């Protein structure tokens, strides 16, 4: 990385608001992100409100304040900036184009053809953003409750190919699983996907880490369908899972709260683990935040605050290593499942990322799944922290 002088005008801006009114909150956070700068139509403003706001009023106000910059975003479990964790409110980040080209596209509904929708949204985003510059990244925000998010990765990957890194997050909510919103092109979507094609003259940095370690013996998924694991080692999945954890199943109806700190780790060829959080149960089967195929080897995972924070710092470091210029800011997509484990030390995660990037502005949201594909991974994650450094 080469240290260069970064002017204020080039730096990413962040802002937040905890005002209960959507219009006032949108205005407040966008204004804060702009920090007094006048945006251009080439610029981009990301907004990540919690599910508490009326989405149309919120988006309209955000667009009004960001004008002529374009506004994209999605709902979150919670948002954060370098300075603030926003449990109920909204976060905005302002991305000056700074020589980059942003192509924004949105497609909805995802329906049963998430692969096709993802392909289309990527194609349109590329077409709009162009390919004038040598480097590109595709940023994707999708409905986190749409289904197998791996199809989003595959659909976009079929368009961009291996040379273009993928980052992003699945829109979140307050774990009621009722629905999420996505924002782009002046539209509010509930089952959509937003893509931002970032074409830049300089290299961007992408980092992805989770900080989880295996607990207990490996198990083989012997029966599964899409994102539901019915059997592990030939036994009912719920039973096998809790046995490995050495814990009793406390509540037969809802297990969400009991499994947050022990997701599955799907073993990859590299020996690394791709984390899959457990969303719920269906009789004896476990519903995951992502696809797990039959024959996959899984392990129950565990972690602690230090490891999670350490992972955030490593992700920032990975991203930093790819940059050719001094960091101007970072978008961070962190998993909702990390929140309870981090507890009081939650602000330390974004701080670790920011610090790892030389204290640059950083902001993002807690997701229902993260997208990050640089090389050799499937690209869809749970329980990770993903960093896109500019």
């Amino acid at each position, binding site marked *: 990385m080469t240290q260069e002088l970064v002017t204020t005008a080039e730096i990413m801006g962040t802002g937040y608001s905890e005002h209960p009114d959507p219009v006032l909150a949108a205005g407040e956070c966008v204004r804060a992100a702009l920090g007094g700068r006048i945006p251009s139509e080439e610029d981009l403003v990301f907004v990540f409100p919690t599910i508490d706001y009326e989405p149309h009023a919120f988006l309209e106000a955000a667009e009004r304040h960001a004008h002529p910059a374009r506004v994209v975003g999605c709902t979150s479990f919670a948002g954060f900036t370098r300075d603030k964790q926003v449990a109920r409110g909204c976060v905005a980040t302002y991305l000056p184009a700074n020589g980059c080209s942003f192509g924004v596209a949105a497609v909805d509904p995802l329906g049963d053809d998430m692969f096709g929708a993802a392909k289309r949204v990527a194609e349109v985003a590329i077409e709009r953003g162009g390919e004038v510059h040598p480097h590109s990244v595709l940023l994707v925000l999708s409905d986190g409750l749409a289904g197998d998010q791996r199809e989003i990765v595959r659909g976009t990957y079929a368009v961009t190919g*291996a040379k273009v890194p993928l980052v992003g997050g699945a829109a979140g909510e307050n774990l009621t699983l009722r629905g999420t919103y996505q924002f782009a092109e002046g539209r509010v979507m509930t089952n959509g996907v937003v893509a931002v094609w970032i074409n830049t003259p300089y290299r961007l940095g992408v980092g992805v880490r989770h900080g989880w370690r295996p607990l207990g013996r*490996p198990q083989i998924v012997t029966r599964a369908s899409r994102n539901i694991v019915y059997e592990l080692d030939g036994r009912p999945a719920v039973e096998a899972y809790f046995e490995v954890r050495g814990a009793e199943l406390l509540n037969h109806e809802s297990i969400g709260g009991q499994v947050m700190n022990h997701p599955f780790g799907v073993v990859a*060829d*590299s020996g690394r683990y791709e984390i899959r959080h457990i969303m719920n149960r269906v009789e004896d089967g476990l519903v995951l935040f992502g696809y797990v195929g039959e024959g996959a080897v899984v392990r129950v995972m565990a972690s602690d605050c230090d490891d999670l924070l350490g992972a955030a710092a490593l992700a920032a470091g990975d991203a930093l290593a790819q940059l050719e210029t001094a960091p101007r800011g970072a978008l961070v997509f962190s998993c909702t499942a990390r929140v309870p484990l981090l507890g009081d030390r939650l602000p330390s995660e974004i701080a670790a990322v920011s610090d790892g990037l030389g204290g640059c502005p950083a902001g993002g949201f807690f997701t229902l799944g993260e997208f990050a594909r640089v090389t*050799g991974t*499937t690209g869809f994650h749970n329980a990770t922290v993903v960093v896109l450094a500019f």
Partner: protein
Amino acid sequence: MPEDYGVGDGSEFAPAEIRMLRARLEMAEREAGRTLFRATRLAQVVKVLGDHSELAEMSERAVCEVAELFSADLALLLLGEDAALGVEAHWGVRPRDVPATPVRLPEGFAELIRPVLIGAAEEIGYPTWLSSYSPRHVAYGRLVTRGETLGYIMLARRAENPFETADAHELQALATRIALALDNGLLYKSMQDQLRRMDRLYRVTTELAGIPHLELEEVADAVARAVRNEVAVSSVALYVPDGEDLRMVGCAGPIGSLPERASREYLAGTELAHEMLLLRSGDPDSGVVVVSQPPRDGTDERALLSHMMELAGLVIDKARLHDLTRRQAERDILTGLPNRLLLSRRMEEAVARAKRRGSHVAVIFLDLDRFKVINDSLGHAAGDELLAEIAARLQAVTRSGDTVGRLGGDEFVVVCEDVEHPEQAFAAARRMQAMVGDSAIDLNGAPVSVTVSQGIAITGRSGYSAEALLRDADTAMYRAKERGRNRIEVFDNEFRTQAVALLRGERALRDALENGRLRVLYQPIMRLPDRVMVAAEALMRYEDADGRIVSPAEFIDVAEDSGLIVPMGEWILAEASRQAARWRSRLPAACPLAVSVNLSVRQLAQGDFAEVVSTIVADTGARPQDLLLEITESVLMHTGPRMVDTLGAIKDLGIRIGIDDFGTGHSSLAYLKRLPIDFLKIDRSFVDGLDDDPEDSAIVAAIIGLARALGLQAVAEGVEQEVQVARLVELGCERAQGFLFARPMAAEAISRLVEGLVAAPAFEGDSTSGAIAVGLTGVERPDSHGVRC
């Protein structure tokens, strides 16, 4: 836990040792996980391969799954020969970067490759078009099944971690499994293709064999459409042989300037016809299908086209046969002209076109004059020969767009389109008249001259139907016949009104005849100067459906024109004869009452009329001398030798004959000498002026003088005044009738009237009676009688 890691008393570890142990433990766990992962990786891919039977979908899914399970960034499924591998599926490569044409493996690669090859990308090589993806490590698996190489699966990593030996073993096993799946997929695809082919074949077969039409043009269009759809060419035209040339009978798509008619050589040589496909059927010269561009390439297409040509040949043959049959059914066998069926259609089409264009259609109805005579005298063969010659002559003088047809017998019809003025149609008729009578036609050595009567009808402002046009032309033709033959008459609206009235009157008259509603009244004929009734003229009436008594003024023309006058005349003759017989039996022998009946020229024209009269007289018991028959002066104009003979025969029976309405016609006085006449009836128009018109008086005197000179009796009609009687007596007229004496009355009233009268001879020369003489006419002429009763 290895002992050398222990420190102190062995119960505790130094932090460094703990870190080391933890790292080793993580490494061991990672390796254990990888080992287990690899053990199940094959199973995962196999599962995915089994989920998709469609080759393309399976291929796409396979490269994706394999790439993810081997942590590869790129994956290619290459199928085909080593020198020309097609990219069946790809992963991690932007679609625009994938070459559309077959690719080659790196030089010498195929010879060196083992079932699996892994290594650094730069050492082993990779397709050059992948270089922008900067692959660092590559792995190739040869897809072999049944000893045959189907292609390769290629994986590439952009990251540092190379493919390992364990990867190679699994990739080999995986490649075998993929090859098997591909083989199955290919087999499946082949089966699907076969099924599709059969389905297509079935569809085409049912489409062509089930064409729901028989019309050649419709069938040909359907065939052309089917060929166009199946082989994806822009346009198709279908030609069938027509004489020496080919004639286009159907097409699909824009045929541009492809000719409607052309020689086979011309079509083969033109650039418009890319290919000519022969229809195959029982007929070696069934036709050709011309396609505008190369049919879609492929063995299937050719096989399908071949099959289609066979089917098309069959259906086209069927349609042509139908066409031929229809043509024959629509043509007159003798002349080859359109018959009534085709004529009707042509007329309907012409009328429809005229309506659209705002033009007119003329229909000329032609009927040969005296054809029956020729046919009867020279034989049917000669008649046919004549008709064929007439057909040829008519065709020779009509325009190319006009239709000449034969309705049957000696009736021809010509349909002329785009007639702007009736004169045009008249001119066409004159041309035909001239052409027909131009020169004598040689029939078996006998030169025969013929003439033709023609009637013309033209679509009016309100438009006609084709049927009405033909009917009106026919009516006009009949008028031409009536007016002397070899004439041309144009039907007009007045004519049409008359025709309609005629038709209506004829129907009512026929109804009366068939249902016994004809009536007879008798008007006395008096002897002068003593005013004794010596005869009665039978006068016909009929009672219509409403009970109204209809006078001859209303129906006589209808009866004449329709020919009903013949049976009606026979009826009243019989009725009058019966009444004469009745009176003879009831009245004193010395006072016979004769009955006079009018005859029509149509009755007289019947060859056997004398026999008819004889039979009636015999059947009714009347005596011939009790009957008087009247013919009008106009009959004389039609009198030929045969009619003279008939009148002679009647006269020979003992029946007397008189001339009605004498003085009004233009007959030659020579007839009075030739014909067997007994009396003359002086027309009422002259009698009317007896009292004040010296000319009428002179004519009456002349007629009476003429009758006397020829030995005939004179009978004055329409006497209504005493002064007329006085004058008639003065001039020597011996018989008179009119309202002055009596109106027409029923037979019974006559009977009462004559009872007790003194008989007197009815007519001079009647040796049998000296009592009552009665002159009766059957069907009186409204213009010649005082029949206003």
